[in-house]
């Protein structure tokens, strides 16, 4: 199917590795040629830039009171004030870091955990496979927002908990995809050869199987990130994320929704940001997956 998979089994793992990286590079290159990926990339870069560098440009501190609540835009407050008289623009510029940071962290947890479970399940070829995957199905059966609410209601609104729960609800989907992709890889000759020379299971999984599914995982990662952003922002909206007076896009929507008809910026801005960010990551994911499909079909020419 691909050059890397067909690598001569006798070649030591170290020598094979540089060549195994190629499909990922190729995937990114191919995806980068698609219009949707580029649009997505621009959106994500703009919003990530806003989130990371925004605070340096904020005219006020995020928790400073600059005027009466829901004041209209003026020269001092370019986009008006929020429900308690804070500057909407400043809070917006400050409020992206948490959404972004928490989502990335949650996705990372979900990805690592899901990939590990999927790999172990695929490689075990035993009852463990069924146990793990049915366990994942059970987790999948619960709507993730419900799981998150239960956890937060039991332990309280803690940031680490939020990340953990979103990560955990992400893991089953990643695990399914990982298992699906690796279940035929583990039957390959080079895996059996590695087994024959007595490599440890961990080494086989990480060194032989994982590199062959990185493209799949990359596509999955961007899709899961989209999902995490939505979930994190949703939970923040419900008040389970960052606590006031900290600024956070999800929280802003909730805080200012009452004033939507009077001073819409406090809601419109974070809504737009979250929407464009998720659309951006989603487009990138879509581009990656199309590129990956193309690679699968057409093999490697470059």
């Amino acid at each position, binding site marked *: 199917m691909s050059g890397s998979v067909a690598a001569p089994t006798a070649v030591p793992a170290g020598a094979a590795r540089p060549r195994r990286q190629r499909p990922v590079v190729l995937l990114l290159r191919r995806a980068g040629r698609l219009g949707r990926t580029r649009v997505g990339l621009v959106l994500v870069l703009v919003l990530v830039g806003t989130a990371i560098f925004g605070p340096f440009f904020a005219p006020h501190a995020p*928790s*400073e*009171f600059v005027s*009466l*609540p*829901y004041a209209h835009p003026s020269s001092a407050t370019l986009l008006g004030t929020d*429900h*308690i*008289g804070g500057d909407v623009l400043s809070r917006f510029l400050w409020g992206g870091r948490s959404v972004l940071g928490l989502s990335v962290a949650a996705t990372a947890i979900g990805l690592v955990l899901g990939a590990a479970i999927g790999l172990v399940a695929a490689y075990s070829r035993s009852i463990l496979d069924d146990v793990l995957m049915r366990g994942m199905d059970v987790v999948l059966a619960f709507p993730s927002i419900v799981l998150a609410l239960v956890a937060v*209601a039991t332990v*309280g*609104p803690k940031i680490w908990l939020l990340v953990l729960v979103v990560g955990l609800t992400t893991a089953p989907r990643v695990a399914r995809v990982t298992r699906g992709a690796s279940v035929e890889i583990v039957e390959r000759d080079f895996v059996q050869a590695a087994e024959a020379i007595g490599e440890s299971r961990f080494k086989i999984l990480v060194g032989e199987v994982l590199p062959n599914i990185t493209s799949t995982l990359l596509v999955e990662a961007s899709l899961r990130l989209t999902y995490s952003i939505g979930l994190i922002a949703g939970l923040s909206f419900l*008040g389970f994320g960052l*606590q*006031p*007076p900290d600024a956070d896009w999800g929280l802003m929507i909730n805080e200012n929704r*009452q*004033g*939507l*008809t*009077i001073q819409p910026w406090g809601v419109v801005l974070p809504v737009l940001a979250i929407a464009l960010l998720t659309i951006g990551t989603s487009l990138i994911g879509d581009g990656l997956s199309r590129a990956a499909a193309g690679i699968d079909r057409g093999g490697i020419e470059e």
Partner: protein
Amino acid sequence: MDGEEGTRIDEEARAQGISREELLKRAAVAGLAIAGAGGLARSATAAIDASFPKRGGTFRLGVPGGSAKDIIDGQYIVTTPDIARMMTGWETLVVNDGQFKLRFDGLAEEVSPNEAADQWTIRVRHGIEFHNGKTLGAADVRYSLQRLINPKVGLGGQALLASIDPARIKKLDKRTVRLFLKQPDGTILDALTLYTNTIVPVGYSPTGAGKANPNVGTGAYKLQSFTPGQQSVHVRNPNYWRSGQPFFDKVVIIDFPDDTARVNALLGGQVDAITDVPPALIPLISNHSGTKVLESPGAAWPPICMRVDQAPFNDVRVRQAFRLIANRPQMVQQAFSGHGRIGNDVYSPFDEAYDTSLPQRHQDIDRAKSLLKAAGQEGLTVDLQTTAAALGMNEGAQVFAQQAKAAGVKVNVKVLDGGTFYGNQYLSWTFSTDFWNPKSYLSQVAAGSAPNSPYNETHWPDSKHQNFLSLYNKAKKTADRKKRFAIEHQMQKMEYDAGGYIIWGFNNRLDGYSSKVKGLKTGYKSTLALNQFGNGYRTIWFG
């Protein structure tokens, strides 16, 4: 039967955690109206509507909250809409007017104590009929008081009417009863103004709404239909005892749990009036032609509560420092959008007994810092638990947290959901917010500032101020108002100096109404919405 059902409702509320409605309920239970406040010496600013009252029309009122737990009981409320509904059909013996002057303008023509204030005589007016045609008499008064204070019924009248001995309410004649109290109580008259302390017919029970025990009162409107969580319809009582009143043919009370929906219903003409307008939405109503905002001076308060028996607040200097941290004008601006006034760490400002001579407390960061230093609490970090149960709780907490930074105090605001906040840990939070509706000073002490109070968030009084209780008991027994006020001032001074509340502001009452509704007054010191719901929907009309 009454007992079972009353307790059940109460237990349900507890089991499910107390939401905003239940909170209102408990405030009401402990005495929501400002009982006992004589009128302040200020002159009435009421702008009397000149147009002549007209009969007819259906008055539709939008009220906040509401759920399947809504009830109609002449003496009990669970949710906020229950208050609006109770006001249609049930009346008290005596009432407070718009300036909080006690008036014999209710069902009683006389309520008077003997000299020792341990016997009270109550005589009701002649010829008042309940909705089912039964004439109001002494037996109804006795039954009503007994039902209110019966712990088995669980209506919570015990707190305010605790001195009444249910077994010793003697019928003197057809319209007169005499109460022989367990101990002297000079505040009975004030307690009887509370809007839930109404008179119901003998054998009254709201679930028996069928034949034997109809859901009737003496009020201006009779109950026609009721769907909990949705709406109720009340029709004009043709035999109402005040001649000429009421004016509407029908009153419809509709639940609107969502604030924006309620405001939109008013703007769109689906309702004629709404209660509890969020300050942020005022411009929508005032800028819209045909709708107006009714703003009344406020006495409801969302305090920040410090537990006087727990570190760090068991040190009075920390409490004093925290009170000095509060920039009250800024809190009123940011949390109430300016629709309120600053507080002075003492509750019940409408009460005649409120001590206006206590100097207004201002922000003083330097003194706060030195007090904290003296207490060894520099750089203190505390969690402030709060929930969005009432206007000003979350907002006040947030503004306070910001102000505390200047004094080197880190306040972590923890916004909890209502179920968690009012769950098992309610009343044991070390540092939290809460909210109270206006009440007279002594009623408020009974409800929230004595060891046996049902809702004492601050656990006041601390060990150093135990004489607060003996003062309270002394005040309760003192029928002479001047002497009683002097004692109440002593109590207020203690709380002003060492209490556990930060009472930073009182929010104004804000309602919205269509300009065709006449009879609403400005400057009305109202404890309930829309000028006490048009005094039971009888002093308002369509112009």
